[in-house]
């Protein structure tokens, strides 16, 4: 069984009915996401805003059951979108910048 994990935040994204709440665990962010994707260092607020007030949510075509959160304006210096991947247990799996949307739009 899963042991206790400190939570960085749990947010209920506004305006949608796909998920009740999305959780980002501390170790996922500090030990993995910003280590493996250092372009996200100092961009926790962007991740938080994207989950809290998404403008579109896609269903991933390559990771079954996962949702992809986007928020307009959340881009890197080259204009690539921030994509936050939320897994089936509704925790953040990873986040990164990409130039393409993916999967099937689920909301709005």
């Amino acid at each position: 069984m899963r042991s206790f994990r400190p939570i960085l935040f749990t947010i209920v994204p506004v305006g949608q009915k796909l998920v009740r709440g999305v959780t980002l665990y501390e170790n996922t962010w500090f030990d993995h996401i910003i280590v493996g994707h250092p372009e996200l260092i100092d961009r926790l607020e962007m991740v938080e805003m994207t989950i809290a007030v998404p403008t579109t949510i896609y269903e991933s075509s390559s990771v079954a059951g996962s949702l992809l959160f986007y928020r307009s304006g959340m881009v890197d210096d080259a204009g690539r979108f921030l994509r936050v991947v939320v897994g089936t247990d509704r925790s953040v799996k990873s986040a990164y910048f990409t130039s393409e949307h993916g999967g099937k739009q689920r909301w709005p």
Partner: protein
Amino acid sequence: MALRTRKPDDPRHLNVDFDSEEDVLYVSMGQPVASHTDEAANGVLFRWENAGNSPPSGVTALDFRRNWRGRRRSYFYSLVAEHLGVPVGIVERAIREQAGGATDEDLGEFEEVWQRLQAQLISGQMIRAWSAASEYRLDATYQVQAVNPSSITVFGGKMTMPATIPKSEFRKVWDIWRAYCAGTYRREHLRDITRFSTYIVSILKWIESDPSDSK
């Protein structure tokens, strides 16, 4: 800016990190650098360095254990090797040495559950129907008719004939089992995964509870 020199024969030059709880594998050429990402099939993200002429900088694999089990893992090694321009053997060694045990943990956990089912589930055992939403209020039972190394056969409820459920179907449900029990994985999605979901969730619940209580 420090220049990165490639040492393709040295597996330590590949930096591997595995997030076992979210099932995400990060492989980088040397220390990870600021990058952008292109998504391929099966949760594979190819990363390209933001600086310079954007050389390949790494690969991230979402749902790594679920997507790249068994013999499929060799194909994953070759994808990483091709993207990063290093020999596939180096990729395999780096992942095995730096994340090997952890990457197989979940598979081992399912095998343990399957072995417990094989040991404790006997022909004639009655299983009460269970679901995350209704728990045991479904008012149905299934009888185990056969337990084989690669399948379990049950009959009962509204079934018109026995159903032989392959081990692989149990594995599919096990992958999302915790999320389903926590109420964060919807029932209709479970039905998309397997047509045996009703029986599998009841059997997994039975083995997670104390089976001696139901004898």
